[in-house]
């Protein structure tokens, strides 16, 4: 029953191929005789439903789009399980793997994508599976039936859906993700972190920033080894690291291929009789990995082929994660940049994070976590490029709120219009009326309102509203000034509020702090990130994981950057005492690495200037070999303990000031502080070590040791205050440790001891350190506990290869020859 209608052959029985046929038939069922060749031995099914299928929420019957009757009813010849292996454009024929040859008049290539497999050793072992079709799901289910451990490589949409399914099927799942946050292409750091903690609480292990070194096993997968040496046992490894347009056939056929098969707006390739559609194509420089754009392409394709052309113009995409109970939505561009303004809403109790990005009065991106109800509305605004300036202030609260009139553009008017029983502070259930009464009762500042009626005293997200009520109630009398300034523009909380919350709510990582305290920016700024990093490491010494990107350059490089971009290197010299051997090693290093200057510092150390970033690990290795460690001359940390020669040599010396200084330095080195911290010990009141301008100074006298605090040189010179006098060296050490810990726990980041002591008062410090013996002992032991984690020489770690990328160029360009990186 061969008809003599022109023959349309479709290669690929997948989502785009069959949809294109549906679109063609809907316009004109008569033009073509249609054959579909599919590599998979089955009918057309909904690929995106493979995730619910794996999770056990659907069966294969449920996800079929077009069953056998559809092919029959439309007289489509389905050749399944027989992939096309060659196209002969001159004779207009295709050849299938079985040897079958067919003539075509029009050819449609819809071959989709291939999963990308990272070529690590072991990637070909049985048990390494991708996640693309029914066979893959079959393989996963078979493995899951045997139980055991699964590793999923790739923390993107596909990987997380695979992990979810396998974990519902009873496997113990570990997700390995190269980037620091999950789904980094769709989610920002804040949402990625929320997702990670939700998945962890469901029993999955999520390793971010983890790089696979190899998959190992004897004849089959037994586990995965990471580049940092960690070893994760597994009976299956699912690779979900990305997809690549399947362009093999098109390339062999000689069609124009870039990242995908290049097509025009009517989906026609460089050959007028060959069309292409779906994930395998490149249109206007873009390739797509989601279904929505394919539907648009299929419409344009059918229109161009059998009706009035209606060219394809590209698609804007949005993403939702199909994991039951986790609402994640993302659309558009959230990378920020000039002119972009972030509007962030966080609700820590409901676990909600919403961020919309507005540029030139248009919505350009949205990231939603925990409440995605408004996802489609945002996506619509984004696609239509609607002007949102009139609903700007209400935008983040969603469609219902914004279209219900929303807030008045003038915030004071908006507050005036609020009913007295309208709730202002959700955490503490405080109404506008109560806030007004509190102000009427004499509370004229935010802090007073917080103290008086608890409004804005918990999560802080209503702070702006409370301030507006103050401004409304007090008119011009409201100074708007707060006694304690917020930490930075990202939050309404002070440093003290934040530190207290970190302890009370047991917050352990930066995104968690930002979520719990309703940060108004997605990932903080260069002023709050280093502060939070410090507060966390101080609060949780045993658990803290460093965030190198929250460190200023000197602390990241463990050396001082100089104005020409080179570094200066200062090895530690305990108490300012050195030896001929150390001096020889320093001299050798100075020669070997071309130090342009060797200088004695104000802190009794030797500083080697002009060292190149690339040479840092080797100069450290050389200095380490001679027994020296990092001098931390670069850090918000204990810098130096300066000493004089004391009773050992000096005719005036009353105590062994050098010995005490060395002991103090051994006790305190490596400690991170709110700011730099300097110590000195002088052997008598002549004070040759200048102990009276240090953060902690000791002046030895005949009867013991005078302990001095809160001094510094610098622009605002401040002499120390006398804390107390003690009679033994051990006491001097104990008081020093307790004082440092008090400063570490209570000062604001970037406060030196001098302004801190002035703010809290000398009496307060005396009470805590001198009068309260139990408290002093507790502080001292907390300091020593923290030190047990901090006294690791960062130079030795780097010299041994840690963070090597910080010191190496990625590559080098020699004109007309390029040398690859390390």
């Amino acid at each position, binding site marked *: 029953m061969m008809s003599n209608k022109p023959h349309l052959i479709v290669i690929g029985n997948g989502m785009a191929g069959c949809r294109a046929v549906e679109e063609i038939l809907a316009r004109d069922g008569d033009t073509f005789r249609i054959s579909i060749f599919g590599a998979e031995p089955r009918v057309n099914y909904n690929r995106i439903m493979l995730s619910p299928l794996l999770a056990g929420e659907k069966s294969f019957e449920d996800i079929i789009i077009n069953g056998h009757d559809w092919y029959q009813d439309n007289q489509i010849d389905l050749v399944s399980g027989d992939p096309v292996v060659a196209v002969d454009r001159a004779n207009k024929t295709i050849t299938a793997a079985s040897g079958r040859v067919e003539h075509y008049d029009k050819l449609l290539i819809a071959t989709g994508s291939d999963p990308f497999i990272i070529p690590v050793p072991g990637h070909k072992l049985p048990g390494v599976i991708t996640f693309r079709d029914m066979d893959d799901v079959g393989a996963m289910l078979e493995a899951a039936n045997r139980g055991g451990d699964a590793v999923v490589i790739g923390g993107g949409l596909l990987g997380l859906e695979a992990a979810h399914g396998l974990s519902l099927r009873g496997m113990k799942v570990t997700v390995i993700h*190269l*980037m*620091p*946050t999950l789904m*980094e*292409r769709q989610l*920002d*750091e804040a949402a990625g972190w929320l997702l990670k903690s939700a998945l962890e609480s469901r029993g999955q292990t999520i390793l971010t920033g983890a*790089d696979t070194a190899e998959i190992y096993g004897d004849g089959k997968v037994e586990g995965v080894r990471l580049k940092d040496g960690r070893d994760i046992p597994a009976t299956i490894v699912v690779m979900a690291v990305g997809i*690549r347009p399947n362009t093999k056939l098109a390339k062999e056929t000689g069609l124009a291929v870039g*990242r995908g098969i290049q097509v025009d707006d009517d989906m026609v390739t460089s050959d007028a009789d060959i069309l292409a559609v779906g994930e395998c194509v490149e249109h206007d420089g873009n390739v797509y990995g989601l279904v929505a754009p394919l539907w648009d392409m299929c419409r344009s394709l059918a229109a161009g082929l059998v009706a009035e052309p209606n060219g394809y113009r590209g698609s804007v995409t949005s993403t939702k994660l199909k994991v039951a109970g986790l609402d994640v939505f993302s659309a558009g561009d*959230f*990378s*920020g*940049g*000039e002119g*972009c303004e972030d509007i962030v809403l966080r609700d820590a109790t409901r676990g909600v994070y919403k961020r919309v990005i507005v540029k030139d009065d248009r919505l350009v991106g949205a990231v939603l976590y925990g409440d995605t109800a408004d996802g489609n509305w945002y996506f619509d605004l984004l696609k239509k490029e609607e002007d949102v300036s009139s609903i700007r202030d209400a935008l983040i609260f969603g469609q219902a709120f914004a279209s219900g009139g929303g807030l008045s553009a003038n915030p004071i008017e908006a507050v005036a219009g609020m009913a007295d029983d309208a709730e202002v502070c959700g955490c503490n259930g405080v109404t506008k009326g109560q806030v007004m009464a509190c102000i009427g009762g004499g509370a004229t500042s935010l802090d007073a309102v917080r103290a008086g009626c608890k409004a804005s005293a918990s999560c802080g997200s209503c702070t702006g509203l409370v301030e507006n009520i103050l401004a409304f109630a007090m008119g011009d009398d409201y100074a708007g000034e707060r006694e304690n300034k917020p930490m930075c523009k990202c939050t309404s909380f002070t440093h003290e509020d934040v530190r207290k919350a970190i302890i009370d709510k047991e917050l352990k990582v930066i995104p968690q702090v930002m979520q719990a305290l309703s940060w108004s920016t997605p*990932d903080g*700024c*260069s002023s709050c*990130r280093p502060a939070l990093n410090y507060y966390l490491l101080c609060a949780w010494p045993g658990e803290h994981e460093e965030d*190198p*990107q929250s460190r*200023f*350059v000197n602390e*990241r*490089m463990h050396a001082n*950057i100089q*104005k*020409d*971009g080179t570094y200066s290197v200062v090895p530690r010299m305990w108490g300012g005492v050195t030896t001929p051997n150390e001096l020889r090693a320093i001299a050798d290093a100075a020669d070997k690495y071309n130090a342009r200057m060797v200088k004695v510092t104000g802190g009794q150390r030797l500083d080697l200037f002009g060292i190149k*970033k690339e040479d840092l690990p080797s100069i450290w290795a050389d200095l380490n070999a001679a027994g020296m460690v990092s001098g931390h001359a670069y850090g918000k940390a204990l810098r130096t303990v300066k000493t004089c020669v004391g009773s050992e040599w000096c005719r005036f010396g009353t105590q062994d000031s050098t010995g005490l200084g060395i002991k103090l330095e051994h006790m305190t080195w490596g400690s991170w502080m709110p700011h730099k911290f300097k110590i000195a010990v002088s052997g008598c009141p002549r004070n040759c070590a200048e102990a009276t301008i240090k953060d902690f100074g000791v002046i030895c006298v005949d009867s013991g040791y005078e302990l001095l605090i809160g001094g510094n040189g610098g622009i605002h010179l401040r002499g120390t205050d006398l804390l107390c006098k003690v009679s033994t060296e051990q006491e001097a050490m104990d008081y020093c440790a307790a004082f440092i810990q008090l400063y570490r726990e209570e000062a604001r980041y970037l406060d030196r001891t001098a302004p801190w002591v002035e703010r809290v008062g000398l009496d307060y410090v005396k009470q805590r350190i001198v009068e309260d013996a139990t408290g002093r002992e507790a502080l001292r032991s907390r300091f020593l506990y923290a030190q047990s984690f901090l006294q690791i020489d960062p130079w030795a770690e780097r010299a041994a290869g840690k963070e090597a*990328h*910080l010191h*190496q*160029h*990625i*590559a*080098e*360009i*020699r*004109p*007309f020859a*390029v040398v*690859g*990186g390390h």
Partner: protein
Amino acid sequence: MNAEWLDIGPVDQLPALGARTLPVQGGEEIAIFRTANGSVYALVNKCPHKHGPLSQGIVHDTTVTCPLHNWRISLITGEALGEDEGCVPVIPVKIDGGRILIGRAAALAGVM
């Protein structure tokens, strides 16, 4: 031999929110940055203020804060943001198949 793009290595060698350097013999060193969401940018590694090495700054959104005096420089336009004025050349860069490709002409500008 005059390809438009130079392949300088795999993209996974760039730390997120970080940068790597690319010296150009006889020309200006280039800094290649990676932002939180994986986008890659390249600038001449010289702050418009006093030539601080931008590769050592803190990367935020699509800006880098210079390590020497905290000027903020746009990774997109190379221009100083806020109060400050100045501009550093932007080098075209793109990712293809997991490799970083850098615009040859701009990278070799000034090289004889």
